[in-house]
């Protein structure tokens, strides 16, 4: 039988239990004393030293991780801020460039307008001068013409009066002579003018 030794063993356990007078549920004094000493030692070392130390390390780790996260967040925020600032600057620069371009264009337009106006004024002035000169010359011509015509008329009248005009033939002779003289005069004047 294979169970024989086991059964025998079980019996001897029971027998041993009966032989001994000990009751495992009743503690010996030394058992309690040492257990108490041991548990107090463990409790003091654990609760006063080891666990707080581990807790401190854990807390520190948590703090470090949180600190790291916060740092990262701060860095990200800063980067975003810088980016926004940069974009703002870029936009400003673009606006500024556009404004300068617009101003330049306007200025160019103004310059062109001004030059045009100046040219027009110059032209007007030239025209006016010319007109004035023409007018002066005309007036001069008129004056001299009037003088000549007056003199001629006087001369003609004196001739008519002097010769006593009897008939139309005579009359026409007088006129023809006058005109001839006039022409001769005019030629003389012209040649005289040329000589002058």
């Amino acid at each position: 039988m294979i169970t024989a030794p086991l059964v025998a063993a079980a019996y001897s356990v029971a027998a041993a239990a009966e032989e001994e007078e000990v009751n495992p549920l009743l503690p010996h004094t030394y058992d309690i004393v040492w257990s108490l000493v041991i548990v107090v030692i463990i409790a003091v070392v654990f609760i006063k030293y080891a666990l707080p130390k581990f807790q401190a390390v854990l807390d520190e780790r948590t703090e470090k991780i949180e600190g790291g996260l916060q740092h990262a967040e701060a860095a990200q925020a800063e980067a975003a801020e810088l980016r926004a600032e940069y974009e703002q600057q870029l936009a400003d620069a673009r606006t500024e460039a556009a404004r300068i371009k617009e101003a330049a264009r306007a200025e160019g337009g103004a310059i062109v307008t001004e030059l045009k106006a100046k040219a027009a004024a110059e032209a007007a002035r030239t025209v006016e001068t010319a007109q004035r000169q023409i007018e002066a010359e005309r007036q001069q011509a008129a004056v001299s013409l009037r003088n000549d015509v007056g003199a001629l008329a006087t001369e003609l009248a004196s001739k008519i009066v002097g010769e006593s005009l009897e008939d139309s033939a005579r009359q026409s002779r007088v006129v023809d002579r006058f005109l001839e003289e006039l022409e001769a005069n005019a030629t003389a004047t012209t040649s005289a003018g040329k000589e002058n």
Partner: protein
Amino acid sequence: MFHPPSLADFFPPAIWFEGTPFEINRIILVRLIAVVALMLIFIIGARRAKLVPGRFQSILEMGLDFCRNSIAYEILGEKDGKKYVPIITTIFFAVFFFNITGVIPFLNIAGTSVIGLPIIFALWVYFLYLWQGVKKFGVGGYLKHSLFPPGVPWPIYILLTPVEALQVFLLRPATLVIRLLANMMAGHLLLALCFAATSFLFFEASGALKAFGAVTFVAGFAFFLLEVFVAALQAYVFSILTAVYLQMSISEEH
């Protein structure tokens, strides 16, 4: 000669100080060795604790984490649990170390397999939960709180109150003691029986009976693994019951 394990295993002859309250026998020695090991591991671990844990520290922290989250916070909630994490952690590791000596070669007996140590642990828990309850509700308040659970018609108290009283004042600590003690004693007897039988069958039995030594050896091996598990399980049970009793003492509602 077959040497079966017996109750005498738990009461070995004294080594030093025989007859005094400080008598030291083999089991006390085993306990002292367990304490030294536990202290060394945790003091060295705490001293070397760094922000970035190494392998050794990771294992310790895993254990501490287990006590904090899976026992204390799980039962008591984070707010109440925080206060009791150190005590629960201490009880868990201490009980585990005293249990595990039962399967460590040359120690071969659990420090908790003699009643003194379970009694001390149980008394610690007992006075802890009584004290915490009284501190929170006052003596009368605590008695009313735990002996007259609300929401029950009054005639039921005739039955309920004695049962509750028995529970709070006697059964809780007694079951803590006996559960741990019996588990560890039985574990030792089983293991020792298997190995004693193996030894006997291999070296002293005749003929074909020797072969059955292999059976008892395998059984011993299985019980060895079982005992490792039981050592951890009983430590867990003890500390989780600590948390549960504390919770019952200090919670507003049952």
